[in-house]
């Protein structure tokens, strides 16, 4: 990797993490993206900007979110574990942040940046609706206009979040193109941005898209990892052995990884959506079957066919149902610093039910993928080990979909 242009672990001046990242945008967006990079660079170095954001995170979002040890979950795993017992499991409770997921950390950071840049209108994409809700919330708080693009299939799966966004004053625009999910919502948000660049800020929700988004979103989410590190020191007396997080675009994962990436003794594990099966069109495990390519402004691993068209994806969780992954994840994986596994729809649903019944927590289906894999690891690693899981969001939004599914199975 060439010399970082900003600070520690930053991409190079062209926005590359190793050979991933970059800025693959239509010509009209080059200047706006450069303007954004400059504005972000200045904001990042401005103590007043950081202070404004910290106040909001503390007083409005409710940070720090707690870290909680899931002892009854651990006990429930014991019967199927070997003689070595079960590792301790700690949950970083991003589900308790205002609006119910980690997405608010980034939405507030970027909305403050939009204000600083003098933009009065914000557009965003959303998959599960959590980023859309967080963006609508930040825009309501800061008095910005807000339009959220959402795939038609996701609007059906996450109807509750659609209504929440509208209550918050945002316009929600249905996207009927392509697979009618997150990928198509990003296409549509970018089309809006390219048409309205003069007064509009594109508030991208994950560590995706052209430079500087992958860097900027990671930095706004890194508060998760900083807090978790301190909290685990207090609770467990040391850093965890493994940190586990689900990976759609990968912002909650990079947020918590950031607190531990410099500590080579901590394993970093991302969990992708295994869907129904690891067969084209039925999953979203990019690292399982993907190939490097360019989509939506960045070079990373992609689920694509032999002709370079993007393959359809599937996951029970809308937030993981995406054909590409953040470029920094691709880099961390090539470096061997992070490893990536997958959990199937059924495994995630089982973990959802288990966490609900043992701990009284309904996780988002996205986060349930991380819980599922953490349970598997806890049984493998044994009682002397510590696992930290980023519980990135709460599951209220998924209750309807799960009920429909359970009723159909009956």
């Amino acid at each position, binding site marked *: 990797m060439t010399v970082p242009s900003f600070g520690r672990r930053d991409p190079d001046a062209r926005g590359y993490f190793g050979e991933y990242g970059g800025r693959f945008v239509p010509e*009209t967006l080059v200047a706006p993206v450069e303007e954004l990079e400059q504005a972000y660079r200045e904001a990042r170095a401005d103590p007043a900007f950081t202070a404004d954001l910290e106040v909001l995170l503390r007083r409005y979002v409710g940070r720090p979110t707690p870290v909680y040890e899931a002892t009854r979950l651990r006990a429930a795993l014991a019967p199927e574990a070997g003689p070595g017992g079960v590792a301790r499991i700690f949950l970083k409770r991003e589900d308790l942040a205002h609006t119910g997921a980690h997405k608010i950390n980034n939405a507030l950071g970027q909305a403050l940046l939009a204000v600083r840049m003098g933009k009065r209108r914000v557009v965003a994409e959303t998959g599960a609706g959590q980023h859309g809700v967080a963006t609508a919330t930040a825009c309501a708080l800061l008095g910005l206009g807000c339009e959220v693009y959402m795939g038609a299939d996701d609007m059906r799966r996450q109807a509750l979040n659609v209504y929440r966004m509208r209550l918050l004053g945002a316009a929600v625009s249905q996207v009927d*193109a392509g697979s009618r999910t997150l990928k198509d919502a990003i*296409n549509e948000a970018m089309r809006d941005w390219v048409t*309205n660049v003069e007064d509009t800020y594109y508030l991208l929700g994950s560590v995706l898209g052209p430079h500087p988004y992958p860097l900027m979103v990671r930095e706004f989410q890194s508060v998760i990892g900083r807090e978790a590190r301190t909290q685990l020191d207090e609770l467990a007396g040391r850093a965890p052995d493994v940190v586990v997080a689900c990976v759609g675009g990968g912002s909650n994962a990079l947020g918590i990884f950031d607190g531990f990436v410099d500590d080579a003794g901590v394993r970093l594990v991302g969990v992708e959506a295994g869907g129904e099966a690891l067969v084209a069109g039925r999953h979203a495990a990019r690292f399982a079957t993907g190939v490097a*390519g360019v989509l939506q402004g960045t070079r990373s691993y992609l689920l694509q066919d032999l002709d370079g068209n993007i393959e359809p994806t599937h996951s029970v969780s809308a937030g993981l149902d995406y054909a590409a992954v953040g470029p920094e994840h691709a880099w961390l994986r090539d470096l061997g610093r992070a490893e990536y596994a997958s959990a199937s729809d059924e495994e995630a649903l089982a973990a959802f039910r288990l966490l609900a019944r043992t701990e009284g927590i309904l996780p988002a289906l996205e986060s349930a993928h991380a819980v599922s894999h953490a349970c598997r690891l806890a049984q493998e690693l044994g009682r002397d080990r510590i696992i930290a899981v980023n519980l990135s969001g709460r599951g209220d939004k998924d209750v309807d979909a799960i009920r429909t599914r359970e009723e159909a199975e009956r």
Partner: protein
Amino acid sequence: MSRLDHTFENLRRGGRRGLVTFTTAGDPDLPRSADILRVLDRSGADVLEVGVPFSDPLADGPVIQRASERALRAGATLTRVLDLVEAVRPEIAAGIVLFTYANPILRMGMTPFVERAAAAGVDGVLALDLPIEEAGAFREATTAAGIDPIFLLSPTTTDARIRRAAELGRGFLYGISRLGVTGARDAIAEGAEALVARIRRATDLPIALGFGISRPEHVAAVGRWADAAVVGSALIEVIARASSERLLDEVARYVRWLGGDAAAGVPSGTVPATAGER
């Protein structure tokens, strides 16, 4: 001198302005797409932009998105588009420029792609999401294969980047007349003339101006500043609306009408005010 250089040289010598057409390869299907290219050439198009359909055309408006979907359903892929160009090339006088997103090229591999494209008789390639900063390998490979790399310039492009694109580009430069995605409009954007003037100050390369052009008066207006006008979405609407039997006649009539051939008459039911821009 490339075929595109000759085309624009001849236009300048004849005091004429060029017409560049954009169609999506494989829309409505590959055989008819080949027929359409032949007809466009015979009807007066000077350069044929051949769109490679892509699953995620984020720079395109609804008209070209739908055309891409139809073409993908009809089985069009980059490989088959190159086969199509190879098949029609001997019968066509116009320059042929592939208009594509980066990923299909990257999937095939830059070197195999340019070799295959050169063998097929492709004259130029424009990759929508490879701005000059990301186009290093693309430019090297295309120029080495004798293919002109075409770069887009937008009202948001700075003068410094216009100069850079003028240094790196070959054949012609493609000016985008307005912000936004592809799609026809009622009128040419204000600011289009200013963009052409900024490009002119930086280079002698021919300039084609596109996005939002659908009528003869647009073509004529663009001809006062630029070397050629690009018509895309409006033509694709003509193709989408025409019945199978009338398809080639409608295409021919529309292109002759655009070129100012009064005898062609106003095409029936064509030229919707809201068609595409590319």
